[in-house]
């Protein structure tokens, strides 16, 4: 059962008015323009025991992505494909709003939107994650760990997911005579085969203003949010409206354009971060 949020942080009405007055002048409270994301930092290989990992900071929002790859059984209807599982945890240490317990609707929505945006455009080559067709395949667990919540979990989570996927290494294994697949507890140098990179762009609609990458204050005062995922060719590979409000067709048209522009900014930052990561590795 989904219930109207009753624990949302309350923002004084006067703050909303201050923000709206700024928007009238074309400004935002943190001095960004409407269409620029916050400062982004992307670190990869931040954990030793995961097959792949990344820590992304989008302003004050922090998301850690961890990838574990384990042998398992394929789905019956997809015997020649590995299994992708995406989960998100809104960890209680990240916000006074987050409670311990099983994933709530927000965590489930976040994980499912990231999952669809990776799965539908076949961003990960799942066919390459097969050990023995119909019998043993790789299970790819992508866990998104929200460590600090200052709005816009979708964009930060997708950046973290892509950074971790792009730098993850397959485990080393041996096939025993019994047919069992045993991990040697060493990592190989083989990366996960990716077909394309994806970024996700969230915009908030606040009255008639559209803002890219809303922070928490902007999320709370927003009427509604639109989440658009793009591939590098500019195709839309996933959409989700989230939040209480509604929008008009003209606004949605506008949001598509604004989001696809912002996607280019994310792609540049992601690609730069992953190139510099490779250089560091080479220098070691």
């Amino acid at each position, binding site marked *: *059962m*989904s*219930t*109207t949020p*009753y624990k949302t942080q309350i923002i004084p009405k006067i703050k909303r008015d201050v923000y709206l007055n700024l928007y009238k002048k074309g400004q935002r409270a943190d001095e960004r323009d409407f269409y620029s994301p916050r400062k982004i930092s992307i670190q990869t290989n931040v954990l030793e025991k995961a097959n792949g990992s990344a820590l992304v900071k989008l302003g004050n929002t922090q998301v850690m992505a961890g990838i574990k790859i384990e042998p398992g059984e394929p789905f019956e209807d997809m015997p020649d494909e590995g299994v992708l599982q995406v989960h998100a945890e809104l960890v209680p240490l990240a916000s006074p709003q987050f409670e311990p317990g099983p994933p709530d*609707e*927000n965590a*489930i*929505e976040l*994980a*499912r939107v990231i999952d*669809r945006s990776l799965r*539908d*455009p076949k961003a990960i080559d799942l066919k390459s994650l097969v050990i023995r067709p119909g019998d043993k395949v790789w299970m790819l667990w992508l866990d998104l760990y929200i460590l600090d919540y200052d709005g816009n979990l979708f964009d930060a989570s997708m950046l973290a997911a892509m950074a971790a996927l792009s730098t993850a290494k397959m485990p080393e294994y041996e096939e025993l005579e019994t047919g069992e697949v045993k991990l040697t507890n060493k990592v190989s140098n083989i990366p996960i085969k990716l077909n394309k990179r994806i970024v996700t762009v969230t915009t908030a609609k606040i009255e008639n203003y559209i803002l890219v990458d809303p922070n928490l204050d902007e999320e709370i005062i927003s009427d*509604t949010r*639109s989440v658009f995922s793009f*591939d590098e060719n*500019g*195709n*839309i*590979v*996933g*959409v*989700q*409206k*989230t*939040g*209480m*409000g*509604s*929008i*008009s*067709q003209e606004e*949605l*048209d506008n949001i*598509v*354009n604004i989001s*696809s522009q912002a996607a280019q900014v994310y792609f540049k930052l992601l690609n730069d971060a992953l190139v510099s990561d490779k250089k560091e590795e080479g220098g070691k």
Partner: protein
Amino acid sequence: MITLTRPQRFIDDEGKRLDGRKPDEARPIKMQVGVLSNADGSALVEYGLTRVLAAVYGPKESQKSMLLPDRATLRVRYHMAPFSTEERKNPAPTRREVELSKVLRESLEPVVMTEYFPRTSIDVFIEVLQSDGGTRTVGATAASLALADAGIPMRALVAGVAIGKVDNVLIVDLNEVEDMYGDADMPVVAAPDIGQITLYQLNGVLSKEEFRNAIDMALKVITKIVDMEKETLRNSYVEVSEE
């Protein structure tokens, strides 16, 4: 039992779909309101083989923990009956049902005038009795009718329809085969009378141009479905007055 297999083609040389529809043609739609006696409002809606029952209880006193001082709390549950799918579905709520309950609630929040009923809750139960694609959009239509049938003030009626893409053609109101094996599924819920879109999701890949066209196609069909909703509601009151 109907078994599903991937078709060779989705659209034949005459431009007809597997079930004989044109790309921009919805399935036959049936609606009925006041179908349950206990609920304050209820509706049964069918798009082809997809059949969804919705019931509304409230406004009623809200549980203390979720009470809102300035408006009613809206609670929505989307649930699939165990016998609604090809293989029996475990009745425990899945992650999919949790997400759909959320997006459906958020598709109704903009039109229900919750500010009229502070400290109360309005419950909307959406039960999928038979699933053949587009269940959440049929659910939105049924919920809209059930809310109106319960006499809850609304800014406008909403209705839903899904747009898909098969053989590189955009199609309206996917059935299960077109959803499962097609290239995109884009459910849309809107309130055409106030020019607002209240739910949009995309599962699949579309170009920006296709996305715009898909929204356009959806809104055309939704406008017709909302007209049917009005007709259905009007007729139900005519019957009552004749009794």
